[in-house]
């Protein structure tokens, strides 16, 4: 029943999601996992325990609740399945996804440590505001992953969401870490692709620009927050001095006193406003992280491309070797050629042996090239489709983020007008 529902819904907006390259308008609603179940990160709790090196530590765990989507639709009240996870487990999940699906732009996690902090904001991971924002970030992560057409069907993911036990073991059993080492090496190395695909080059460039711009923006915003905080707080001093002054005034006293109170509340109002702005900053941080993921996909493409070229090159040279051996014409330098010249040609049996060995190697190399080419092709197809999907989502999300920001600013202005109007009224009574 549930699966059918899912399929029907997916079919309804079909024609678009049929082939990867045109899945531009796949919305979150239509993807598999999220259709089948509701997911939320409901709570956060402090726990104490012993860590890997047997030291006592305090950490926060988050409650993931899942519920079949049709339960609500059918009016059934079903208690959710719940699983407690800590941040490091989310990190592990993401690392697994990145290594297992290198052609997908994997959604980001909320930041590990508070960065781009403006001075008043607590950089303490235990701070309740920080924990709350992290909870929201973790929920967003899960929603993004669950609505990703490629990622949402992963078994490890569903295990993560529904079953607390043995999850870590299951992840390690997949052997995803093996890919980690080669990935690290590859990303560190500089290599040149002979015939790079322009679209990926451009996209890599774009991802670097996006990273640059979002981090610049986050830094600038933090500085602005710092300054506006100071401006508001200094007005609090007016509160005090008006109050003191009102003590010696007969007629003006009441007006001054109440004006002072308004100035106090003006000064206090900035905290709430800036806390709201942190959510906007979080949205920007999400895309800073996304930019990195995007770049990784592009780099992975380059790597597979490079590996394909290397494998092809290897095949070509092996074939050449075989040719030379077969025809006796030495076109390329080889050790065997030199020894032949020095010590005379080898015996025909030896030659035959070497020829057949080479043939085997060539066969292997051809398989290798085929496999690499397929990998490359798969990567290109899937990655490009995902990149386009990402781009659309990014445009939508960021536009919404900017709208939110504008709303915060408007709210700030309205509050400012309110306070100053009240203050004006007080002055009027002087």
């Amino acid at each position, binding site marked *: 029943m549930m699966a059918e529902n899912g399929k029907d819904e997916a079919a309804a907006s079909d024609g678009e999601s049929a082939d990867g390259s045109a899945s531009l308008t796949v919305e979150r609603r239509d993807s598999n996992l999220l259709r089948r179940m509701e997911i939320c990160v409901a709570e956060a709790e402090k726990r104490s325990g012993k860590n890997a090196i047997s030291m006592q530590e305090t950490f926060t765990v988050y409650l993931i609740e899942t519920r079949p989507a049709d339960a609500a639709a059918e009016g059934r009240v079903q208690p959710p399945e719940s699983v407690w996870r800590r941040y490091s487990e989310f990190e592990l999940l993401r690392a697994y996804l990145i290594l297992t699906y290198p052609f997908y732009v994997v959604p980001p996690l909320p930041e590990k440590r508070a960065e781009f902090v403006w001075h008043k904001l607590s950089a303490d991971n235990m701070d309740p505001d920080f924990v709350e924002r992290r909870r929201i970030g973790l929920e967003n992560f899960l929603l993004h992953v669950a609505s990703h057409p490629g990622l949402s069907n992963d078994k490890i993911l569903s295990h993560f969401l529904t079953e607390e036990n043995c999850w870590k073991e299951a992840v390690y059993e997949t052997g995803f870490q093996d890919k980690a080492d080669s990935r690290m090496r590859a990303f560190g190395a500089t290599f040149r692709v002979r015939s790079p695909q322009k679209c990926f080059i451009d996209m890599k460039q774009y991802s670097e620009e996006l990273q640059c711009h979002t981090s610049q*923006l986050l830094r600038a915003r933090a500085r*602005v927050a710092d*300054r506006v905080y100071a401006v508001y707080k200094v007005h609090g001093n*007016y509160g005090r001095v008006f109050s003191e002054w009102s003590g010696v005034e007969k*007629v003006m006293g009441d007006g001054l006193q109440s004006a002072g109170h308004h100035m106090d509340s003006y000064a206090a109002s900035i905290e709430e406003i800036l806390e709201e702005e942190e959510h906007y900053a979080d949205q920007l941080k999400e895309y800073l992280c996304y930019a990195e993921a995007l770049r990784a996909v592009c780099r992975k493409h380059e790597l597979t491309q490079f590996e394909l070229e290397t494998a092809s090159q290897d095949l070509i040279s092996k074939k050449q070797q075989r040719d030379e051996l077969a025809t006796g014409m030495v076109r390329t330098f080889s050790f065997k050629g030199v020894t032949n010249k020095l010590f005379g040609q080898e015996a025909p049996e030896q030659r035959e042996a070497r020829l057949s060995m080479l043939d085997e190697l060539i066969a292997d190399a051809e398989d290798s090239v085929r496999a690499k080419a397929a990998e490359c092709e798969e990567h290109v197809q899937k990655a490009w489709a995902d990149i386009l999907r990402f781009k659309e989502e990014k445009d939508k999300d960021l*536009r919404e983020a900017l709208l939110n920001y504008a709303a915060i600013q408007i709210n700030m202005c309205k509050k400012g*007008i309110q306070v100053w*109007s009240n203050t*004006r009224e007080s002055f009027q009574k*002087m």
Partner: protein
Amino acid sequence: MSVGTPRGLASSGQKPITEIPHPLSAAEESLSPGPDVSISPGGDKDPELTNGTLVDGSSPASASSTSALLSRLQVEENSEADAAELYASTETRDLFVTVDDPKKHVSTMETYITYRVSTKTTRIEFDLPEYCVRRRYQDFDWLRVKLEETQPTNLIPPLPEKFVMKGVVDRFSEEFVETRMKALDKFLKRVADHPVLSFNPHLNAFLTAKDLNKRQGLALLTKMGESVKHVAGGYKLRARPPEFNAMGEYLDTFSQKLGTIDRIAQRILREQSEYLTELREYASVYSSWAGSEDELQRPLEGVAGCVTTCCGALEDLSENMSQDFLPVLREYVLYTETMKNVLRKRDQSQAEYEGRLEAAVLRRQEDRTPMPLEVEKCQDKMECFNADLKADWERWQCNKRQDFKQLLIGMADKNINYYEKCQTAWESLVTVLQEKQTEDKTSETN
């Protein structure tokens, strides 16, 4: 109350000031509302909020009955609010002055600014109904010195600072000249509204003479323009009457609070300036990001534009505070200092009287001579001083209330204005962004 036009008042050039009947010696009559034409520097439209003072010098009651005088003052002191009404309501004024039209003059010796001083009056002390002369700061300073010399018992309004101590301020910049001009205008209006000072012959000369004949001692005067003439030297004050004590204490607290407000305002300006710097940078980051986006280019440019608009609004706010708020605040600091000096002079006057009285009493005890005339004169002087001071105090309190009300309301208005500008900018951006959203939504469902 009705106020008749000043009649029978001797031309101030003929009688010494002390013989001109004190305005408070007139019977308390209600003021009839009259048109208030001159606009105070802050552009105040409320006709009641003038530097309104009682212009009345009609009744030639003698100033000798000091007890009657004092009792009249007692009545008036009962409620400051009533007094405020007394002075703040509109009255017929017959002397209007304005300072405007600054011009730079360059000569071989120096460069300086002159201002146009326009006068309109129906007073008979003036030969013509209208005058228009040009005066420079020096001339205002001269006037103030003369007023202090000739009206030692009155509170003379302050002038803006003579020297620019900051060192970096340009004496000929538009803002500086504008600020100074407003302060000079205020000074002159306060003098012209004063029932006693406005009849001073030096004011007359200042307003009318083609070429002011400056006295020699100008260069020797201090920065504040305070003449250092003491009423008498060496007399110790026994006990200050409580009302003057209260004044002194009030002035101490008040000037302290003014100083604090000045510091706060300056701090706010500094913080706003730094905020502005960061905001500009912030706007440019949005702009440069917009360059690498396609769909998001317009929204990002939109945000950059909004932030830039807010920068402009913030700049305006800071400028206003710096040009309108701070100078008036500082002027009141000067005013307070002046008032304190007058209090001190009054103390001197009382000390002298008490000293002489004591000496006379001792002598009387010895050889039964009648109270010497000089003692009586001293007493008169002291009591006149007290009366003048109280009257000026009331006027000053009233003006202070109006001035600060205006000043602070102005500050609130500027801030409201700033937020309104910002809100408008952001709201129009929201409209644009939301339009795009609905555009996209409709295209998606198609």
